[in-house]
């Protein structure tokens, strides 16, 4: 019988939540790496038992852990992330030049074809790749060096490369996003990059339509239609139908278009999910009501999904990497909160129930659909 494995990164360790295809009863394993910040963990689509985890701490720096048995056991692999050449400077919060300094890995994206190949998005923003199962890491420095890097600036959470989307139809095409620089695309497997931010408008930067400087929070795609992208920006929910060459706002009737997560239904490329957050000054849901919003029209028209979610006195946040969908039928949707809850819906968002309620603050949620 098919099942799911939900990989949860928190401020104090990793948790692995497993269930059969009904997604009603759950086994909880963890904390793995207790006391460490686990920004992200993700499994290989080629070998689901191959997992990678980003483990970090302000005291001891960055580690990468790898499991070859679906998260039962782990072993540290390479943790040496060194920028290619002279790192140079980017902008600091006050606009002054600031040296590029490695801080942590925000996101790990395993290859679609090779379990030993994995990408790492790091702070200060850069993209690294390993082709030996995480033992060694090399920067794809064409991104940082493409010309605008000196104008990138950190968002409130740091200058992080947090989103990596691999195009399943074109091995050379990768999309990435950086807070607060924007979205970028390569069509030659990472050698050269270009900003793809036309159509974004950000009032908090001197030129609201600048080529770079936009605080993109998350990008999502449906694997059957990789030229269509959905974006949750700092403010605004956006859509691109030309692989990021241009963007249109699709916030429509959302109660607020600020938020962090965005994801796409596994079987319906026009069905999109977001979790609206009140504002960039108040990182909690409007009215104390936790609601996922779903659009079945690729944006603009949104419906609130609240069945099973707290509808009073709820002041948690849902961080940018903390939503995922499984590929069962019906599609399962999962998200985690800074209050330590991981909610699951086994019916595409119509109803929700917590898998766990009292984890440390959830930073990331990924799900694997198991045979």
């Amino acid at each position, binding site marked *: 019988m098919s099942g799911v494995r939900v990989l949860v990164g928190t401020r104090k360790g990793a948790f692995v939540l497993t269930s059969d295809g009904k997604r009603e009863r759950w086994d909880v394993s963890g904390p793995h790496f207790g*006391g*460490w910040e686990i920004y992200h963990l993700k499994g290989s689509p080629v070998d689901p038992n191959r997992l990678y985890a980003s483990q970090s*701490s*302000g*005291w*001891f*720096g*960055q*580690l990468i852990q790898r499991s070859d048995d679906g998260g039962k056991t782990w072993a*540290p692999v390479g*943790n*040496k992330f*060194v920028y290619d050449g002279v790192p140079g400077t980017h902008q600091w919060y006050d606009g002054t030049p600031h040296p590029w300094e490695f801080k942590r890995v925000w996101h790990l994206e395993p290859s679609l074809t090779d379990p030993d190949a994995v990408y790492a998005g790091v702070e200060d923003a850069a993209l690294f790749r390993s082709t030996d199962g995480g033992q060694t890491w090399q920067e794809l420095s064409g991104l940082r060096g493409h010309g605008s890097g000196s104008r990138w600036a950190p968002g409130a959470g740091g200058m992080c490369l947090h989103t990596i989307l691999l195009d399943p139809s074109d091995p050379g095409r990768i999309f990435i996003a950086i807070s607060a620089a924007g979205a970028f695309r390569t069509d030659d497997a990472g050698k050269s990059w270009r900003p793809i931010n036309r159509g974004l408008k950000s009032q908090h930067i001197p030129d609201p339509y600048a080529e770079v400087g936009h605080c993109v929070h998350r990008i999502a795609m449906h694997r059957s239609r990789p030229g269509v992208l959905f974006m949750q920006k700092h403010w605004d929910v956006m859509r691109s139908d030309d692989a990021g060459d241009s963007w249109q706002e699709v916030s429509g009737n959302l109660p607020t278009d600020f938020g962090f997560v965005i994801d796409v239904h596994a079987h319906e490329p026009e069905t999109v999910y977001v979790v609206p957050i009140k504002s960039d000054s108040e990182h909690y849901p409007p009215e104390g009501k936790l609601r996922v919003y779903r659009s079945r029209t690729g944006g603009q028209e949104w419906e609130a999904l609240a069945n099973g979610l707290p509808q009073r006195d709820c002041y948690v946040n849902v961080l940018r990497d903390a939503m995922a969908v499984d590929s069962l039928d019906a599609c399962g949707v999962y998200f985690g909160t800074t209050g330590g809850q991981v909610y699951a819906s086994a019916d595409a968002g119509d109803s929700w129930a917590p898998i766990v309620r009292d984890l440390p603050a959830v930073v990331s949620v990924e799900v694997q659909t198991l045979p």
Partner: protein
Amino acid sequence: MIRIVLPYHLRMLADVGGEVMLAVEGRATQRTILDALEARYPMLRGTIRDHVTRQRRPMLRFFACAEDLSYEPPDSPLPDAVASGAEAFWVVGAIAGG
């Protein structure tokens, strides 16, 4: 033998229970004992010293013989009591954070 006491998280990472005992060739300095530690426990590379600069990470300190040795040059001899194993060399994490 040199005795090294690691903070909890690094003991868990290296899978060692208590003190680490290391034989160090030549003079015992911060550099030689940390090099020996990382050679025996490669998973500790980068967690005490930066991979590139080899500088002590900012939120760690080195104590021994009731002294803070954090700002001693890495090639200075450690106290005789550390070199002889009478006293341990402590890697200590800052008491900070949540």
